């Protein structure tokens, strides 16, 4: 492990987050992204494709109504599939086309007065396999479940340096889908969405250790 003094190496102010929360980040502990699938790189074409397909205007539009607190409120732990926060038909049956009509490319929904978040995995057609609505807030019996903290923001190693990827890339390997556009969560929306080669600067973090010579 790194010594503490070595880790206190930089601070950064992160984009939109600064609007509501102005933090000076001190990199206290280095964190790795859990679960980088082995085919992350070989499947990386998805990212370029999304980048090509998404009009610049859609990438740079602003909305800012989706924020991290509601983002996490809809999840149980880092990486859990979010619940469906809006009304769906009672049948909510099989009609993937309906989900995808808003969530494949995003866009404004007048009824909800919101921009639809874009799914990073539109190739999975069976949406209700993982995403369910909320029919009641009550529980069957109380639970002793406890969760953990969400990943921290602003994990750059140097002032202004690109932060590594803090989350699992399983089902979330499409950076453009979540980190650009008006439906993106304000705190994690990038300001430089016109650049398509995300992995040029942002790398996954596979270990928390530092390099040590073995011999």
């Amino acid at each position, binding site marked *: 492990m790194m010594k503490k003094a070595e880790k206190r190496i930089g601070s950064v102010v992160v984009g939109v987050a600064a609007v509501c929360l102005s933090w000076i980040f001190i990199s206290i502990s280095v964190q*790795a992204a859990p679960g980088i*699938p082995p085919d992350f790189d070989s499947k990386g074409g998805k990212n370029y494709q999304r980048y090509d397909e998404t009009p610049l205007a859609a990438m740079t539009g602003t909305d800012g109504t989706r924020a991290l607190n509601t983002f996490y409120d809809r999840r149980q732990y880092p990486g859990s599939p979010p619940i469906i926060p809006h009304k769906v038909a009672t049948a909510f049956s099989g009609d993937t086309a309906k989900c995808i009509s808003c969530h494949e490319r995003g866009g404004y929904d007048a009824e909800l007065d919101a921009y639809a978040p874009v799914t990073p995995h539109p190739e999975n057609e069976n949406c209700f396999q993982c995403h369910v*609505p909320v029919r009641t807030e009550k529980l069957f019996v109380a639970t002793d479940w406890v*969760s*953990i903290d969400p990943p921290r923001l602003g994990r750059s190693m140097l002032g202004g340096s690109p932060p590594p990827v803090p989350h699992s890339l399983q089902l979330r390997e499409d950076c453009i889908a979540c980190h650009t556009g008006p439906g993106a969560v304000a705190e994690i929306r990038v300001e430089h969405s016109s650049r398509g080669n995300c992995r040029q600067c942002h790398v996954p973090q596979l270990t928390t250790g530092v390099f040590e010579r073995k011999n």
Partner: protein
Amino acid sequence: MKLDRRSFIKSAAAGSAIAAAGSIFPGISFADWKKQEGASGQLIWKKAPCRFCGTGCGVLVGVSGDRAVAVKGDPNCSVNKGLCCVKGFHVVQALYGKDRIRTAKVRKGNKMVEVPISEALDLIASKIQETISQTGKDSVAMYGSGQWTIPDGYVASKLFKGCLGTNNLEANARLCMASAVTGFMTSFGIDEPMGCYEDIEHADVFVTWGNNMAEMHPVLFSRMLASRKRKGNVTIIDLATRSTRSSQASDKSILFKPSTDLAVANAICYEIIRNDWVNWDFVNKHTTFHKGKTNIGYGTEDHFKFKDAPQGITFEEYKKFLEDYTPEKAERISGVSAMDIKYLASLYGDPTKKVTSFWCMGMNQHVRGTWINNLVYNIHLLTGKISTPGNSPFSLTGQPSACGTVREVGTLTHKLPHGVVMKEEHRKMAAEIWDVPLANIDPKPTYHTVEMFRALDRGDIRFMWIQVTNPMITMPNLNRYRKGALKDDRFIVVSDVYPTPTTDVADVILPAAMWIEQEGMYGNSERRTQHFEQIVPGPGETMSDTWQIIEVARRLGFEKQFPWSEDEYIEKIWEEYRRFHDSPKHNMAPYSLLKKRSGVQWPFVNGKETRWRFNAKYDPACKPGSDFDFYGKKDGKAWIWARPYEPAAESPDDEYNFWLNTGRVIEHWHTGSMTRRVPVLHRAMPESYVEINPEDAMNLGVVNGELVKIISRRGSVTMKASINGRGVPPRGMVFVPFFDESYKINEVTLDAFCPISKQPDYKKCAVRLEKV
């Protein structure tokens, strides 16, 4: 290895650490949950098979401190390749319901009193001894589960069959997989699918027979959809009795009247022969034709007995038999148009198309369950579309270890880990491995599950130990069996993790370790054995089901047969059990390999998994020089069966004019004792309902959400109507999910079963409806 809290934290700290958490955001949290105190932000990821269905998805459990806090799909597991369903993604939350059973409880008068677990185990052992001395060895019974780990089932079999000498050992897989087993045994002479999930990427056509895979096996269903999307020319046909999410996603939905799948399957074979789509080379070399008894009854009476009498027939006789099932005649029976039958036959018959059939409870929970399994195999055998990639008649399972524990270990009254109690060579093998006298193992099977609960009601069984299952929700004709269990001088022990209607009838409740709170193995639908280590400590005095049985066995004087220490018992049990399957037809992987990999398929021969059995290209157990070898049968030939259409045990009439069909929903697994304690799942599906066809609802004067009373000759349930909801039954049928203990729909169902498999039919009985 047994972990307590302290040693766990120590071992966790030594493991490789991958971090995921650690926030400096005030006020931001996951779904408002309390946060773990003192969390280091370090998550350790450990592999396990999912706790729920028989698909056998690999999950990675994120552990922080001594708690499971997150889940990911295991990308190294070939079953799900990193994807899960909503149950799997939240499976760890099932560990933490506030009402976990943490201590043993013993009935004293009308009250359940907490006692140290050792006292409860003493009482169980003395009660077994007392009952045997008073009413004989066949008055004690154990009822286990397809959710038993493999070691759980193995020690149960060793204690009951080997040591106590009674065949009173059954498991709830009798209610879900028995017809699949007898289907395999009668057609192929050996159990479990010849293919594997990889068939999904190879097949051009899928036919799902009475199988709502979109909700019940969603991860496999997604694999099918992904294959269709990728290849473009893949066809999915949903052949079912009601419209479901699977129907909506399929290319064509075909509805048949309950029980008439028998006629449809025969008509498909008629068409295949009429059009000469038969693969003659395959049929001549690898099949023989047979018929059995007909009008075989329904088992609704106590002491029902049935033995089939198979007879060889010629192809010409078989062809003559099929004349009763021309597409036109089958249309009159089934309601499926002759055109649709011909279309189905053309898909199966097209030599350029690879066809996979999937089924699960629709075909198994069927009073002619063995027959319909045989008939679907017929289609694949006539066309030679079997045991090759993409050509696969595939029987899916519903429980994580229905295959691993119940079918492979053989925790059924007639079974042994290898073979059956009726055969001396099988008893000899068991007696030798178990180190018990040969005379201990009784050559006569006793009771199958329904008859076992009838025996409990009659008083032939006085003591029953129930582990990892909830029969006071799941037994058909439930009123009778609950009353039986509650009778004086019946003694019921229940090992479970949460209070259920079954713990409500218990005299002793044992606190069980759940899933990853113990080490164990499951076996999934595609012959894959999946090991998991103890990942978190269990609460209170919880103990693994295996260890509970070992403790009782030792109290009964069987220390010699149960000598293992708590540090290594799972490994020792596995290596002892593996001796039963030591042949190229069933070899299992060694413990060390199971620990490393996210599941290993058997037969595991010369360091390799066997993906397609009976095909010499893939299966080293085939005779040298053969192309296909159905080695389960002595002559290496699979059986094509002449099995007629026969109606259900109870069909709608003037008084009871609706079919009642029961089943599951995607959010809940089985009786909901685990999934209802997962917040996301309960909030999405808080209670059960009755699906009614819109026109029937209109005639009844019922709108969505209004109460309807469902009445059969056995009981009634009043619940909310769901009209044009998730599933839509055809006119004359209602459907009720069975997960909700507030609406015990099995008080309404009928305990009729397939006379060959003894598996009850939960999909067909007659009811009438009243608006409340």
